[in-house]
């Protein structure tokens, strides 16, 4: 009888213990060291300062980046993007997604490790925490200590600073949707609209809770990207990798049997600095955001014990097996991602350079389709919706081509004024003399032409409908 047949299942427990699942029961207090990747991480963080500064830039007398929802306009420096141009948003989203995929395929979770707001804000929060409460050891001690004056003071100070960052984060986000100076004034004077308060509350809550408390739990359990990354990396992707061949068997640097051991001295510093608390020596895993801080840590130890650096280093699975990495342009993933990337870029560039100054839409009245007039004419009604996206009034004339014997009723097509930034629908009637048209449905074109510079000529396909044989 084997062990399991005898009901001995302790090996099952052994195995279960190996799968240590981080569900946030214990706060991770990561050690902060200096190093190459730490510096890179600061550069990544610094990019986010733009987020805080951008709303204060002005362009042409108004906020340079402004999503004006009531006016349905998106101002981006000199550009104004209208809802009609929103198809470009789809391309922008594709572009961002593909960039993420491509970077992940080549170099893993670069976004997570260096740029993601979750990583960056958590990094700021823990930086403050260290400044106020001290090193990880001191922090753990403080957490375990009973409440006293000092603990209350430190915690209060920390949470106040965290909340202030959260508030500024929230105000900044709201500032992209309305004038930033007016917004500050309204927040301070408690006069902001309900939407602004909701946005602010959501962002304060989100920032404070996600960066202050949930931290790596967001990466583990909330972020969809973390769940799908395994299908985006392949054997060519470079990731922080522990060199098992070189490191194992791990053990103390000196003492009995140390000569036969590998380079890993089992100091646990790589685990100690990890912001998500994973042990990189167990290989690539869900919790690893590829920030490289363990590489910094390990290198510093290797320097100290006079062993070559790079026991943990960025390497692909193929490299670790001694194979050569194929060049970037020979990897199918990279090629297909790049192709989509450039298609999207091309589309966006085309879209941005070809934003039409006037958006025209002409609708034929559906009921009644035609009207018999008292003099025998057949009249059709059209609703013209012309949006002037420019900053000045425009004047147009309107004619129809492709319909002999059909004319625009009255002088409505002679001079059409389109007010700057406005779309006021109006009706226009076309009439055909009795017996001119043989078909029930005659396609034709409306021509919309500006009478002064800038010269704009638009055509619009429409139909004229008449009773059969009249």
């Amino acid at each position, binding site marked *: 009888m084997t062990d399991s047949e005898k009901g001995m*299942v302790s090996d099952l427990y052994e195995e279960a213990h190996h799968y240590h699942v981080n*569900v946030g029961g214990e706060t991770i207090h990561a050690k902060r060291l200096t190093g190459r990747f730490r510096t890179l991480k600061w550069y990544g963080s610094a990019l986010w300062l733009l987020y805080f500064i951008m709303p204060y830039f002005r362009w042409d007398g108004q906020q340079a980046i402004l999503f004006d929802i009531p006016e349905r306009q998106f101002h981006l420096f000199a550009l104004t993007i209208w809802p009609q141009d929103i198809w470009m948003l789809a391309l922008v989203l594709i572009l961002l997604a593909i960039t993420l995929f491509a970077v992940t395929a080549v170099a893993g979770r670069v976004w997570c490790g260096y740029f993601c707001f979750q990583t960056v804000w958590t990094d700021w929060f823990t930086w403050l925490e260290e400044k106020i409460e001290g090193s990880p050891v001191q922090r753990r001690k403080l957490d375990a200590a009973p409440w006293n004056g000092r603990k209350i003071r430190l915690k209060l100070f920390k949470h106040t600073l965290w909340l202030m960052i959260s508030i500024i984060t929230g105000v900044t986000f709201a500032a992209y949707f309305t004038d930033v100076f007016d917004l500050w004034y309204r927040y301070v004077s408690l006069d902001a609209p309900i939407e602004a308060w909701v946005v602010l509350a959501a962002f304060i809550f989100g920032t404070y809770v996600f960066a202050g408390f949930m931290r790596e739990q967001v990466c583990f359990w909330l972020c969809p990207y973390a769940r799908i990354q395994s299908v985006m990396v392949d054997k060519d992707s470079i990731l922080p990798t522990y060199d098992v061949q070189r490191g194992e068997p791990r053990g103390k640097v000196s003492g009995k049997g140390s000569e036969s051991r590998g380079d890993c001295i089992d100091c646990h510093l790589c685990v100690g600095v990890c912001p998500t608390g994973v042990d990189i020596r167990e290989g690539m895993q869900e919790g690893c955001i590829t920030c490289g801080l363990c590489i910094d840590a390990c290198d510093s130890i290797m320097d100290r014990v006079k062993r070559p650096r790079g026991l943990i280093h960025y390497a692909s699975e193929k490299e670790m097996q001694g194979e050569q990495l194929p060049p970037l342009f020979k990897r199918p993933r990279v090629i297909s991602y790049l192709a989509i990337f450039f298609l999207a870029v091309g589309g966006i560039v085309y879209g941005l350079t070809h934003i039409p100054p006037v958006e025209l839409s002409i609708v034929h*009245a559906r009921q*009644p389709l035609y009207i*018999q007039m*008292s003099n025998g004419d057949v009249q059709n009604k059209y609703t013209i919706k012309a949006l002037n996206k420019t900053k000045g009034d425009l004047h147009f004339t309107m004619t129809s081509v492709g319909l002999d014997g059909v004319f625009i009723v009255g002088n409505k097509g002679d001079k059409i004024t389109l007010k700057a930034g406005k779309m*006021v629908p109006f009706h226009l*009637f076309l009439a055909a003399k009795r017996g001119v048209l043989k078909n029930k449905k005659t396609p034709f074109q409306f021509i919309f032409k500006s009478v002064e510079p800038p010269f704009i000529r638009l055509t619009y396909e429409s139909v004229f409908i008449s009773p059969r044989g009249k």
Partner: protein
Amino acid sequence: MAKPNKPEQVPDTGHEWDGIRELTNPIPRWWMISFHASWIFCVVYLLLYPSIPLLHESTKGLLGWTQIKEFKEAVAENDAVKAPFLKKVAQMSGQELLDDAGMRNFADSSAKAIFGDNCAACHGSGGQGAPGLFPNLADDAWLYGGDFDTIVETITDGREGDMPAHKGELPDAEINLLADFVVAAAEGKATPKGLIHFNEAGCAGCHGEDAKGGAINELGSGAANLTDGIWRFGGSKDEVLRTIRYGVNQEDVPNTRIAIMPAFGEKLTPESIKMLAVKVHELGGGK
């Protein structure tokens, strides 16, 4: 709470089967937080909103919120937005409303719902009417006039057609001749002899000496233009005969035509009527 515990160290319930122990691991913290947040939400909701059904009504809730109240607030909010425009509608003349692109568009769009509620049942959603029953508002044939002020008058006070029945008044043969003339006139084939006959029979009193109707020769009687191709009650000879024989809106005359437009002056505000007039004027035949 949910610390990664070594299974050997976790307290158990004392139940053990074949070496498998039932552990008493605490429930995950996130689950407990969600659980407590959920029931707190339920209690708060129960207190704030109408929630517990009683025999005839439900508890009112501390907020005093009701669906109809929220609806009325939304309506009031919308009315407040429209108020300055309605004020302008009241102040502007018909011509001014028609000439101002923005106000014309406002009136036209606002009147869409009013038209749908009050007018479309008879005149159709596009104002196209129903042949023989209700007049088409989108063409340029008007019984009472198609200028803005007349349209306002028509909507406010309503209209009632009046054409005497001629059966018994005129011999049948003559009615037959008159019907032939009217059908021909609409096709542009009227004979001078027919027109003389038409005048002698007394039709010209309302329809004009040239048979071109009331509004056009400014009698304002609602008498139709008989020379265009547009028919109020149908243009086949049988239909024309019926109209001449039994008239329009004649009391105690069977088969008489009914042509009554109700008055909306008391039902609709003057602003609504003005906006309706803009819409009707813009349907295609406004004068």
